[in-house]
């Protein structure tokens, strides 16, 4: 297994407005959707039972919102590093995420400010699939302003 980038935390003073957040691409299979639903303790059948999902007007099972936000935090800290703290995530939901497609998170740094003992970076991001925007959002990430180890 390759060593993830987030073992190193970005240096807040070097982050600039306009910086790209490293994209995160997920091959969304039925297993990905079911594993995410159960790991977040969401047992709604639309997230694991295709026949049931069809009775609800969907063409297939679809990703639950707690998985959407779980991937948001992975996307942000894979880029920012393990000493970065996700302080705020706000998403607006769009098209559903069905299996058999790719979900791609992309984002850009849009702001930075010193707040208490942290350097806070604001990011605008979206996650898209073949149908369009699955979600669009903003996040705030807190970086230590004193370098730790």
């Amino acid at each position: 297994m390759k060593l993830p980038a987030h073992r190193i935390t970005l240096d807040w003073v070097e982050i600039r407005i306009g910086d790209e957040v490293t994209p995160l691409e997920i091959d969304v299979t039925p297993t990905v959707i079911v594993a995410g639903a159960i790991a977040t303790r969401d047992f709604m059948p639309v997230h694991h039972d295709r026949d049931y999902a069809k009775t609800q007007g969907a063409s297939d099972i679809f990703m639950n919102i707690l998985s959407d936000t779980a991937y948001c935090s992975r996307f942000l800290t894979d880029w920012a590093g393990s000493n970065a703290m996700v302080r705020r995530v706000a998403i607006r939901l769009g098209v559903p995420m069905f299996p058999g497609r790719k979900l791609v998170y992309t984002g850009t740094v849009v702001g930075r400010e010193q707040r208490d003992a942290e350097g806070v970076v604001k990011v605008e991001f979206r996650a898209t699939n073949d149908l369009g925007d699955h979600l669009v959002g903003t996040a705030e990430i807190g970086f230590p302003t004193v370098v730790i180890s």
Partner: protein
Amino acid sequence: MTEQDLDDRLAALIGQPMGSRETSQAPDPVNQPMIRHWAAAFEDWNPVYTDPDWAAKSRFGEIVAPPLMLQTWTMAIPKIAGIAERGGSPVEAEGTAALSILDEAGFVGTLATNSEFEILRYLRLGDVISAATTIESISPEKQTRLGAGRFVTWVTTYTDESGDVVGRQRFRILKFRPDGVPERAISSR
């Protein structure tokens, strides 16, 4: 029911608890097995979640839970038998007054539109989390691409065993009168 009656009934719900219980406590303290399961499901190998040696040297000084796992700790223990018959509800229906009033008024469609997390501190192993959810706002009737609807926002405040707030979550849904519902307008959470 007139529009004014509906407005009055909905206005009375602002600040009221969502569901029958004011507060729900997590069935288990924040724990490593559930964190590891979560990390594996999302392939999130941030070492502060699962590597004690790494976490000890991090700003946190110990293992912490993924921040957006916050809601997972207080999710109800599901009653699997009959879940489909209950419309997917993991537990026996807990009357959510706002939603039933809107259903009765014809706003039977439900579409989740927004989710927002505010994280005050990361959770540590052993934290016992409680959640209290209140209705924050209900919008006036608006025309949407799905039909006439009202946006309902609730806010959940998460506290630790000392009663200190560790995070908040806002969740917004559109309750709408369906007129030709496209596929995406499906109940989701």
